[in-house]
């Protein structure tokens, strides 16, 4: 059998291969030769074969059949064999294979070998890839070597111990005695690895941390010597003495000084010294300064030192070296919470970094910019951030847009600015905006009541330009649906109102429905918007036509909506205006939807029209009907109500907003439902045309006392709902003449089947004693058949510690309330 070819020869041969296939062929041939050579148990050439195998493994070819051979090499007495064997073990074996455990005995022997280089090989292998089992078995040997006077072995043992501790943390205790005089070593290798070991122990155990705090003075001394001592050729790097050791010591000081006043005090001086004296022309000096800054920030340093640190970072920001700038931005991000003002001083430099070419720097600068935005600099910062949004890579746009929204929400100087900013984001990065921003924006727009006309106008103009960005289109169609009447009437105060006709608006919305660019969700938005306009525009017939066309749409969601809206036109036209009214101001909370309540019909065959809300807003939860259980009877219609009280401002307040929006704008009156009976009491008509406020209308109907028992008195006052005279609006006023408050007060009501009842949130659930205040709640009763109004009420509250419950019938409604 000729000798196996030599390693370098093989490498040379393989490199001549011109194709992947050729290379594979060579490798396969050689692997076969190596395999048969292994089979012959040849001791001379084993290490040559394993070395070749390792080369082929690096090229990506399988080499598992060499694992056992590595073990044989390790067991050999020849140093060359051991060297290649251990290298093979580190490359081919890992703790997932049981084979590696066979190494344990060999390593144990080699740890006690007479030659330090063999011991070194064993320590290195154990410290690199030793499994937990191996570490457990050999920890004792490592600990022994940690105490040796041979610095070559001691430094390796220290790092090996670090690995053992990482794998088997319980063994940490056993290394404690050996650490006693590690720091008194002169040898830098031992010092460096000892500091690493101490750092590992302190990070893992608070007890160790307190134990080692006493080393702070010694560490400070070592650091001082490094800085003050003259040129030492052995450890010098660009004029700095052993920067690796300096950095490690600074890191250990950071851990020891954190949260501890005394230690922090002891290291103040040396930190200041390092911070001011370190040469900054080369990377190595900056590496030390960087570590120093991190340490100053983490410990309880005095303010002068902290300012020094932030200033160092500020200088870093101006450095030509982009690595330094990157590191500065990262550190500033960590300290911006703690030292906000100091970081603010460098704001303009940070904002400049937004224009850097490097992606990582841009990202850091963006995060930091958002952290620095406050009420004072919002206008300037937003200009820069919007410019950044325009020009940045797509990977940034989503985060940047979200950040801008958040900042705008927190610090917007005016509503108009806020809406303008949002518009700008939607038009520049509209397709990258997060999904949840659509409902958030809608909520924001709804709540900026005075800006509705301006907002809808701007959104409409944006739609004319571009309908491809879905979030923008969704928000725009929602707004047009809500405020289309303002758009058409040319109401805008903030800017020149545009002239647009109802047909033009409907053209745009219908265009969204048919466009290929529109997502299904967007189509849903625009169909709903078109439907809402049926109560705001006069071209109802056109809308009816559109809605009926989509009744046979392939998209199930659209189809369902269209069918339900069709039903609204046909069977439930009397309900349409009420259902499609303006949205009230929404409560801002993550979990609840709008404060409005959905009413359900007692009859089950009518579809539940919940699609008038934008899909992202969750429906308010409907309550169980215990009233139905209690009162029984088929003539009672269940009532849905919420138990959460609204702001005490005004219980009828929501209603006011709804009506106020409709009547105060002076826009075209919503088309009355065709089925409204023409006969109306004359005083109501007067109320409609002359005074928009419903209070005047309601003045015609006298209030009544519905309930008066045990000190609790409930009065009903009446208003007529404009525009639908079939809806009576009753406000209950609950007062308490006793000396004790009535708490957990809940009012419930039920009406006969031909009526429909809607109960809005009460102003509070405490009826104060001695008539000091009242609880108000609004009830809206729809009475299309003009029947006599009857009501059953149930009251529950807690009085003087005990719960009280009562039922009553209210039959004494004045005729004007239901005729």
């Amino acid at each position, binding site marked *: 059998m000729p000798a196996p070819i030599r390693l370098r020869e093989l490498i040379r041969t393989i490199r001549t291969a011109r194709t992947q296939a050729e290379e594979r062929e060579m490798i396969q041939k050689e692997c076969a030769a190596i395999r048969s050579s292994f089979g012959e148990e040849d001791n001379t050439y084993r290490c040559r074969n394993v070395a070749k195998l390792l080369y082929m493994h690096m090229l990506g070819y399988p080499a598992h059949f060499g694992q056992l051979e590595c073990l044989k090499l390790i067991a050999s007495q020849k140093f060359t064999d051991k060297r290649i064997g251990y290298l093979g073990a580190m490359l081919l074996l890992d703790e997932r294979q049981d084979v590696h455990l066979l190494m344990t005995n060999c390593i144990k022997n080699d740890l006690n070998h007479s030659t330090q280089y063999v011991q070194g090989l064993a320590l290195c292998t154990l410290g690199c890839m030793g499994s937990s089992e191996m570490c457990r078995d050999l920890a004792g040997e490592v600990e022994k070597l940690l105490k040796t006077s041979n610095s070559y072995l001691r430094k390796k043992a220290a790092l090996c111990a670090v690995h053992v501790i990482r794998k088997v943390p319980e063994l940490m205790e056993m290394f404690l005695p050996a650490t006693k005089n590690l720091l008194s070593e002169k040898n830098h290798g031992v010092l460096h690895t000892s500091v690493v070991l101490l750092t590992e122990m302190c990070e893992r155990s608070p007890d160790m941390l307190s134990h080692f705090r006493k080393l702070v003075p010694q560490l400070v001394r070592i650091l001082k010597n490094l800085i003050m001592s003259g040129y030492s050729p*052995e450890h010098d*790097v660009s004029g700095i003495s052993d920067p*690796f050791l300096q950095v490690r010591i600074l890191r250990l000081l950071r851990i020891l000084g954190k949260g501890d006043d005394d230690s922090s005090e002891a290291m103040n001086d040396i930190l200041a010294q390092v911070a001011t004296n370190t040469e900054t022309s080369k990377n190595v000096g900056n*590496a030390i300064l960087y570590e120093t800054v991190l340490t100053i920030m983490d410990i309880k340093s005095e303010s002068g030192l902290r300012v020094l640190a932030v200033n160092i970072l500020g200088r870093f920001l101006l450095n030509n070296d982009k*690595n330094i700038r990157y590191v500065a931005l990262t550190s500033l991000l960590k300290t911006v919470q703690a030292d906000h003002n100091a970081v603010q001083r460098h704001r303009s430099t940070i904002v400049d970094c937004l224009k850097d070419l490097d992606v*990582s720097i841009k990202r850091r600068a963006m995060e930091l910019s958002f952290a620095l935005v406050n009420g004072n600099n919002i206008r300037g910062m937003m200009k820069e951030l919007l410019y950044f949004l325009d020009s940045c890579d797509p990977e940034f746009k989503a985060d940047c847009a979200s950040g801008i929204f958040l900042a705008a929400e927190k610090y917007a100087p005016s509503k108009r600015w806020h809406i303008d900013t949002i518009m700008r984001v939607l038009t520049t990065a509209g397709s990258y905006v997060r999904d949840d921003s659509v409902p958030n924006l809608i909520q924001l727009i709804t709540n900026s009541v005075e800006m509705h006309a301006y907002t809808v106008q701007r959104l409409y103009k944006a739609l004319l330009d571009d309908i491809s960005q879905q979030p923008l289109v969704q928000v725009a169609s929602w707004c047009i649906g809500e405020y289309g009447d303002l758009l058409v009437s040319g109401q805008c105060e903030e800017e020149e109102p545009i002239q647009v006709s109802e047909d033009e608006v409907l053209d745009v919305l219908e265009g969204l429905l048919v466009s290929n660019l529109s997502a299904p969700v967007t189509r849903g938005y625009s169909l709903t918007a078109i439907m809402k306009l049926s109560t705001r525009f006069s071209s109802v017939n056109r809308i009816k036509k559109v809605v009926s066309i989509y009744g046979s749409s392939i998209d199930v969601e659209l189809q369902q909506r269209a069918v339900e809206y069709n039903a609204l036109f046909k069977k439930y036209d009397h309900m349409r205006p009420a259902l499609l009214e303006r949205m009230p101001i929404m409560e801002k909370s993550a979990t609840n939807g709008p404060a409005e309540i959905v009413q359900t019909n007692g009859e089950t065959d009518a579809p539940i029209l919940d699609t008038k809300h934008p899909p992202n807003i969750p429906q308010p939860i409907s309550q169980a009907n215990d009233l139905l259980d209690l009162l029984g009877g088929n003539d009672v219609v269940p009532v849905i109500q919420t138990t959460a009280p609204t702001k005490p401002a005004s219980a009828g307040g929501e209603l006011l907003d709804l009506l106020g929006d409709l009547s105060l704008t002076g826009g075209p009156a919503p088309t009355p439902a065709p089925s409204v009976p023409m006969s109306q009491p004359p005083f109501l008509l007067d109320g409609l045309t002359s005074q928009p406020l419903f209070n005047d209308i309601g003045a015609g109907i006298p209030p009544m006392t519905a309930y008066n028992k045990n000190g609790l008195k409930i009065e009903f006052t009446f208003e007529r709902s404009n525009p639908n005279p079939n809806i009576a609006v009753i406000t209950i006023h609950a007062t308490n003449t006793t000396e004790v408050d009535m708490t957990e007060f809940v009012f419930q009501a039920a009406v006969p089947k031909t009526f429909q009842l809607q109960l809005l949130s009460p102003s509070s659930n405490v009826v104060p004693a001695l008539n000091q205040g009242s609880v108000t709640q609004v009830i809206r009763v729809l009475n299309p058949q003009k029947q006599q109004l009857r009501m059953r009420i149930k009251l529950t509250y807690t009085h003087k510690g005990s719960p009280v419950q009562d039922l009553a019938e209210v039959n004494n409604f004045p005729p004007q309330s239901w005729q």
Partner: protein
Amino acid sequence: MQFMLLFSRQGKLRLQKWYVPLCDKEKKKITRELVQTVLARKPKMCSFLEWRDLKIVYKRYASLYFCCAIEDQDNELITLEIIHRYVELLDKYFGSVCELDIIFNFEKAYFILDEFLLGGEAQETSKKNVLKAIEQADLLQESQPEDWGGLANDEIL
């Protein structure tokens, strides 16, 4: 440090040192991804990038990329110095080192690395001491031809 990779501008791996236990498949996947990411970087970009939950520090020396993966609390700038120190050691050992030296003498490159780093941390901060140790170990390899069936020291591999 979790691992160090050396690769050429064509993406060929020249050295891989792993300080965390991973299976072969995982190592190959990480290597492939990282090589692709680093090679895609433009020359003007900084030497650091975030990858998964690690920080990657890389530097190019002639035709070789030296790439280290460090943890969150490690100092990026000093890692650059570590890479530089390793290159200096190779340079001193091979005498003006180039990629070919590392290709044909990969086992020696590993030996030098193992005298400089252990378990991902520097074990010796003196250049002189590392080189001395390698020198001594190399001398130890010199043995009688009888032990090697008549082969001289430089004929063994």
